[in-house]
């Protein structure tokens, strides 16, 4: 089980590197799909089978399809490496790495390995999530349905041809 996590984590990191470093948008999209599926496997290992399946159905199976269709329609080509803002690259990326180093340091300090290996499991099945969604969190649930309606209307209006 632990070995599976490390293998899948390595796969996720490699695929994420590929998303960031590939010049062709289609390859970035395919690598992002690999990251999403790898994360779904990690969710399975974390006692969250329902969220794993939802991740694949919604994220990898619907949102990324949208991305791939838009890339196909707009015929996004290989990127040329000219860019006019050196600031983002030469200042931003080192700062991001500084942030990463700080995060890793804080995590290592705050959650030492020995004390958190025997964590209690959690009930992640659909029944539990269903109960929580419809009992404690029913208001956010209804609000997100309105949000989705608004997003659908917005997307249709924005992408229409000027009539």
């Amino acid at each position, binding site marked *: *089980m*632990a070995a599976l996590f490390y293998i899948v984590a390595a796969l996720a990191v490699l695929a994420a590197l590929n998303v960031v470093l590939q010049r062709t948008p289609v390859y970035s999209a395919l690598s992002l799909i690999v990251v999403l599926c790898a994360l779904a496997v990690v969710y399975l290992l974390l006692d969250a089978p*329902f969220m794993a399946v939802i991740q694949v159905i919604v*994220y990898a199976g619907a949102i990324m399809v949208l991305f791939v269709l838009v890339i196909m329609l707009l015929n*996004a080509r290989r990127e040329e490496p000219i860019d006019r803002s050196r600031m983002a690259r030469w200042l931003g990326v080192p700062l991001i790495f500084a942030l990463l180093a700080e995060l890793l340091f804080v995590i290592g300090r705050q959650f*030492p390995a020995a004390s958190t290996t025997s964590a209690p499991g*959690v009930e992640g099945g659909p029944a539990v999530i269903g109960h929580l969604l419809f009992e404690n969190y029913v208001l956010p649930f209804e609000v997100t349905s309105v949000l989705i309606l608004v997003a659908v209307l917005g997307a249709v209006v924005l992408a229409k041809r000027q009539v």
Partner: protein
Amino acid sequence: MVPLSHYLMLSAVLFALGAAGFLIRRNVITIFMCIELMLNAVNLAFIAFARHLGRPDGQIFVFFVIVVAAAEAAVGLAIIIALFRNRESLSIDDLDSMKL
């Protein structure tokens, strides 16, 4: 058994990669994909904590993050399509001013 910190480190690495990609890439759609990568890193952290604390509420939060990400992707891609129709370019250097 995998300790909690390893899951969080994976989440931090993915988040940093997403943020770095957001800064270096020039294509608008790829920038958007790096944002999705950051959202997924955060989802992983939520689920790791849900398991660590023994409460499924973290998973409910992930549910809402996924739903909001879907809405955001739909509207964001519609905006990109509208921008592409006007500017004929997907490079963020050409999209940085409101003058046509």
